[in-house]
C-alpha cells in the first residue's frame, strides 16, 4: 500500500503562472480553464524510478572524444531536499545547456555563435544517500531569443528532476550570481515572489572552487513534500492552506 498523504499545497507566488504574459510563447499555450485538483492516489504518489545501471551517469560535460571544451570550467554541487528538509537520495537529475558561446547543439538553434565539438550539451547525475550531487561543466554563454527587441537569456543550466512521485516532477533552470541579464529576463521574472526567484540563482562558493581547475557553484533544489504523518480522519485535506 502506497503512502497516499496529500502533497502539501504550493506556497502562493513561489511558482510562475501559466499565463506569464511577459513571455510571449505562453500566449497560445497556457490553459484558460482552471486546473482540476486531484487527490493524491497511487498514480500521483508514486512515479518512475531510475537506476544508474540502466540510465548511466554523465557527470563531466567538458570532454568529448578526448578533446576539451572551450570556456570557463565550473563544478556545480548541491543537495536535493523535500519540503520537510529531508534529503532525496538516489534520484536522477538531467541537465542540459548552451556551450560557452551561447549555442545549443540543437538543429533549432540558429544563433550565429560557434558550436564546440568537445562540449557535451547534456548530462545526468544521481544524488547520493544524502541527496548530494555534483558535476563538472562549462559556464554557459548568454544567447539571444526573439521574445522582445534585443532579448537575451541570462546564463543558465536547465534541470529536470523526477523525485519520488509523479507529483514531484519539476523542470527548472539554474542561474548564476551577478548576471546583469537576470533583471531583464521574462522567464526568470515570471515567478512573482522575489525570494523564490532568487533561489534559482546558484551561489559562487570559494570552498567548492577547485584550485587551478574550476570555479565552484552551489545550487540546492527542493522538491514538493507531503505531510510527515498521514491524516487519520479520512478527509481530504489537500485544499487546506499551510
Amino acid at each position, binding site marked *: 500500500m502506497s503512502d497516499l498523504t496529500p502533497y502539501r499545497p504550493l506556497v502562493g507566488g*513561489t511558482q*510562475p503562472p501559466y499565463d506569464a504574459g511577459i513571455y510571449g510563447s505562453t500566449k497560445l499555450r497556457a490553459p484558460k480553464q482552471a486546473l482540476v485538483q486531484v487527490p493524491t492516489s*497511487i498514480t500521483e504518489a508514486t512515479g*518512475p524510478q*531510475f537506476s544508474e545501471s*540502466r540510465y548511466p551517469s554523465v557527470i563531466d560535460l567538458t570532454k568529448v572524444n578526448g578533446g576539451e571544451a572551450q570556456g570557463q570550467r565550473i563544478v556545480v554541487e548541491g543537495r536535493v531536499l523535500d*519540503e*520537510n528538509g529531508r534529503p532525496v537520495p538516489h534520484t536522477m537529475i538531467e541537465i542540459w545547456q548552451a556551450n560557452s558561446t551561447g549555442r545549443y547543439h540543437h538543429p533549432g538553434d540558429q544563433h550565429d555563435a560557434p558550436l564546440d565539438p568537445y562540449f557535451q550539451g547534456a548530462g545526468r547525475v544521481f544524488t547520493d544517500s544524502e541527496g548530494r550531487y555534483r558535476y563538472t561543466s562549462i559556464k554557459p554563454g548568454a544567447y539571444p531569443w526573439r521574445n522582445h527587441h534585443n532579448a537575451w537569456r541570462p546564463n543558465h543550466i536547465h534541470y529536470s528532476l523526477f523525485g519520488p512521485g509523479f507529483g514531484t516532477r519539476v*523542470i527548472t533552470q539554474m542561474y548564476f550570481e551577478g548576471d546583469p541579464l537576470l533583471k531583464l529576463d521574462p522567464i526568470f521574472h515570471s515567478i512573482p515572489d522575489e525570494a523564490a526567484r532568487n533561489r534559482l540563482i546558484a551561489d559562487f562558493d570559494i570552498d567548492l572552487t577547485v584550485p587551478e581547475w574550476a570555479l565552484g557553484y552551489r545550487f540546492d533544489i527542493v522538491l514538493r513534500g507531503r505531510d510527515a504523518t498521514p491524516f487519520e480522519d479520512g478527509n481530504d485535506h489537500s485544499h487546506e492552506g499551510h
Partner: protein
Amino acid sequence: MTLATPIATASQTIGPYWHLLPYKGWNDLTRFGATGDVITITGRIVDGAGDPVTDACVELWQPSPAADAHFDGFGRCASDAEGRFSFTTLRPGPVAGVHGAAGNVQQAPHVAITIMARGLMKALATRIYFEGDAGHDIDPVLNLIEDPARRATLIAKATGPAAYHLDMVLQGAGETVFFAI
C-alpha cells in the same frame, strides 16, 4: 529554534532545446523486455490557435502494471512536426482509489501524462483513459469533472483492438482537462 521550512523550487519552462536530453526509443515502454497485453497510444497536441505543438516533451507514467525488472512504467516522446506523439506500452489495469473517498472506489485503467514545452512555465499534468472501459462512470477522478464534454477530453478513442488515440488541446475550445496535484 525554528528552522526555515524549505519551499519547493520554482518551475521554469523546458524551452525549445530539451531534445538534448535522450528520448529516442523511450516512447516504447516494452524496450526492457516487458511482455503482456501490448497497446499503442497515439495523440496530437494543438495550441490555442489550433496549430500543432511541435516541440513538446510528453511523458507517460503508469503505476499499473507494477514496475519490475522489465517494465519501469515510464515513457518519453517528442511531439513531431504535426504535434503527434505515440507510446507503446502494456495495458494498465484498474488501481486503488483515492485517500478518503467514499467506499475507496477503484480507479479505471489510465496512464498519467506530463506535457512540457516552450511557453509552458510549468508542466501540465493530465490522464488518458481508454474508451470502452466500464469503470468510467464510477472513477473518482473522472467524477471530479462535471461537464461530460470536458470529461471526454481524457478518454482515448479505440482505433483498433489494442490501439487508442487522443487529441489534446492546450487552450480554448475543447481544452483538455489538466490537473493540479
